[in-house]
């Protein structure tokens, strides 16, 4: 079980007597919009053509051969979305969301990055620009700074990263804490007070400690169970925690979760196998996130995105190599879903990007801008210039969010 380390009174006592000021101001006035947002980064280049197979595209089965996902209705078949697209059979929760009109699937989507390095690709996705290493801060953090202010003198809205450290997406000027479950014993007040005093004049450590204590204070009010270990539990614990944080009125508005392991160069599998197992764990985790959000699900949007896609054809080792366009998911109770967001380029040889990859026809920033604008009420001006710098030509996708 997770330790409940710092009760509210104790946190206030420690924080109040010390030269520690958390940048994180979780408490919000009632007038602030109560929209919730979760961003899940899938590192490693998720195979969009396996996750949302275009079973109705005439070239699909021939390109994917032994790793093609069977059509809906066949044994282990994909879960039908429309006449062209289907979901991988390991994603039953996402399929429920689709039928409940709470899931949008963006396909043939890509960031502005057109090379094939994971690390540069992730950097572009995270920094929100068009080049690797363009900024040392992330688009989601800059979006936080642009949220409508809750009340005069407020520190602004806040976010939380589920994990020990902040991914680039969440780094920047806005106050963001990180939180992860602890398996270590609690530390006593007196020692904590002395450590805080040692950090008083250290601009980094003082802020980090205060942020950690503030996040812990929120965590102790939420039900943070330690999930069982095992393959299917990979994302359960953190996604449940994310839901618990966001479900609280005084909790953060935005959460981010980082996942790895989507780089399927060999033995990727089809309806079953390596990728299927990971997708199944992700689907289970997303269901747990919905459950933990409770009533807040109806006010929530979850976006899942990856740095780029994979080759249209299976490679020589029953896997796929680095590609270009892929899928992104937008789900949640606040989503105007049950639709594909795609200008499908097709998989015929002439349609492929550089004769090898699914061609990009939708800029991921357009999807993200649509969500940030309509759901979190970030202004167009801030989106064009600050959140995604120099992106005014990338128009936000419309009508992603329920009116």
């Amino acid at each position: 079980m997770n330790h409940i380390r710092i009760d509210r009174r104790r946190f206030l006592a420690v924080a109040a007597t010390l030269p520690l000021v958390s940048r994180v101001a979780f408490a919000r006035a009632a007038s602030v919009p109560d929209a919730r947002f979760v961003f899940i980064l899938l590192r490693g280049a998720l195979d969009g053509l396996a996750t949302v197979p275009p079973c109705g595209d005439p070239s699909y089965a021939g390109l994917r051969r032994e790793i093609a996902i069977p059509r809906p209705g066949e044994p282990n078949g994909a879960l039908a979305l429309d006449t062209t697209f289907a979901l991988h059979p390991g994603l039953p929760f996402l399929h429920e969301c689709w039928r409940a009109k709470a899931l949008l699937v963006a396909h043939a989507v890509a960031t502005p990055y057109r090379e094939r390095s994971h690390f540069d690709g992730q950097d572009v996705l995270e920094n929100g620009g068009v080049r690797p290493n363009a900024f040392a801060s992330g688009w989601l953090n800059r979006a936080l700074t642009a949220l409508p202010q809750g009340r005069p003198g407020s520190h602004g809205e806040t976010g939380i990263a589920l994990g020990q450290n902040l991914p680039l997406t969440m780094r920047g000027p806005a106050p963001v804490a990180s939180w992860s479950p602890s398996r270590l014993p609690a530390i006593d007040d007196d020692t904590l007070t002395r450590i805080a005093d040692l950090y008083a004049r250290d601009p980094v450590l003082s802020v980090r400690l205060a942020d950690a204590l503030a996040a812990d204070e929120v965590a102790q009010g939420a039900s943070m169970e330690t999930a069982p270990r095992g393959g299917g539990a990979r994302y359960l614990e953190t996604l449940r925690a994310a839901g618990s944080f966001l479900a609280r009125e005084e909790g953060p508005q935005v959460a981010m979760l980082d996942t790895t392991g989507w780089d399927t160069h060999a033995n990727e599998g089809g309806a079953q196998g390596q990728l299927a197992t990971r997708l199944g764990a992700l689907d289970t985790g997303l269901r747990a996130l919905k459950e933990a959000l409770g009533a807040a699900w109806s006010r929530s949007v979850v976006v899942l995105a990856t740095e780029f896609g994979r080759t249209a054809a299976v490679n020589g080792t029953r896997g796929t190599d680095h590609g270009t366009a892929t899928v992104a998911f937008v789900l949640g109770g606040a989503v105007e879903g049950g639709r594909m967001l795609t200008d499908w380029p097709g998989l015929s040889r002439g349609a492929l990007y550089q004769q090898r990859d699914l061609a990009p026809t939708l800029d991921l920033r357009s999807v993200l801008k649509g969500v940030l604008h309509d759901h979190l009420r970030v202004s167009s001006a801030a989106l064009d210039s600050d959140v995604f710098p120099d992106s005014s030509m990338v128009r936000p996708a419309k009508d992603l969010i329920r009116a």
Partner: protein
Amino acid sequence: MADSVAAAIATNRFGLGARPGELANVAPDPRGWLLAQLSGGSPPVPGAAALEGSEAILARAAVLREEMRDRKRATADPRDSEEKLRRAAQGIGAYYRPLYVAEVQARFRAAVASDRPLVERLVQFWANHFAVSVDKAAVLGVAGAFEREAIRPHVLGRFEDLLFAVERHPAMLLYLDNFQSVGPGSVLARRATASRRRHGLGLNENLAREILELHTLGVDGGYTQADVTSFARMITGWSIGGGRGRLAEGEPGRFAFRVNLHEPGAQQLLGRRYAQAGYGQGEAALRDLARHPATARHLAQKLARHFIADDPPAAAVEQIATAFERHEGELIPVYRAIIDAPEAWETPLAKYKTPADYIHSAYRGLELPTDGQRAGLTASELLGQRTWSPGSPAGWPDSAADWDGASALLKRIEWADAVGARLGDRRDAQRTAPAILGGMLSKKVSQAIARAASGAQAVTLLLTAPEFMRR
């Protein structure tokens, strides 16, 4: 005072944290202490004799796999011993896991006990530069052997030898899939096409791409997708011996060049033509990559980031790159250039410790016992840097922003508190603090330790001090 700052930097930034008594030895000549560590070749891991080599491990795994197949094929054969069936049922993971734990522990002890901590840091640096990650199950049993066999013997030698040892090692060929990459025009692929059994035979460009992007030129090194593909063709056939069916040839568990998998014909890489036949083609290309100026710059940048600052000064990077080129990839002159860089000796301490740095320096500074089976592994898991599991071939990141998260700090504090509680009064933090931090110890921390409510709390304050979080 100046010497005690330089000694603290030598032992903490270049080493793995001072042990009590070390600073006094180092203080008269901190640079000399570092340079002396570079001679005498790479020390083996203490206890290495008890650890198996990758060849034996992979050969054993192949036998286990065969037993499992036999078991599946026929229902239990009465001639099979109970033991054989049991082992086969547990699978390769059950064989690999204890090997991994023992390797982590051996490496951890080496780091904590070393008298040449600069060399241990270099082993860790290069192992991370050429990262394999045990979250890929196939390398769990051989990640430790990879570091002992391919990295450690070469960190004081030439980069080219290090590079060849790495790219030919079974752990890397498994991790980045090259062992089964097949040239589309190779003998094997043509034979398979003729018999219509082509599925699962073809190129895998994973290793080729990461050699160019991560191991040598760097992502800005000027190569294209066409270079990646043709380099992947050149190294088709770089594989591992043993296996079944079409992979039956060669010594099990050892590098094998499988000519049947190799793509015939000349290839272009970075505008240069490689017309060699067979293994010699990839060999020539890899040798040119090792000597390429972009490789020198890429490595210099990474070394400077590791030893000087997250955003290292261009002049220092330039000097390191120049040393690399002038000495044709000899690594000792490269390390000398780093030690000679004045920026490496500046305060305040510029590098935030990674969890591994933090754990090693705590164990060294407090002379904590390392006799537990999993001491190092457990600490690395709790603090978020499980040994050999960076999760990607890029290895662990090397900047403060990647490690100084709020939750990560709280984990360190809790861990430090647990160390304090375990030690109680058995360490005198008041005496230890100046002995391991020297000129970096602030008056504020020194006073806080002196005024601690207990010996345990004094230890916790020492381990959580701002100057102990950085190197």
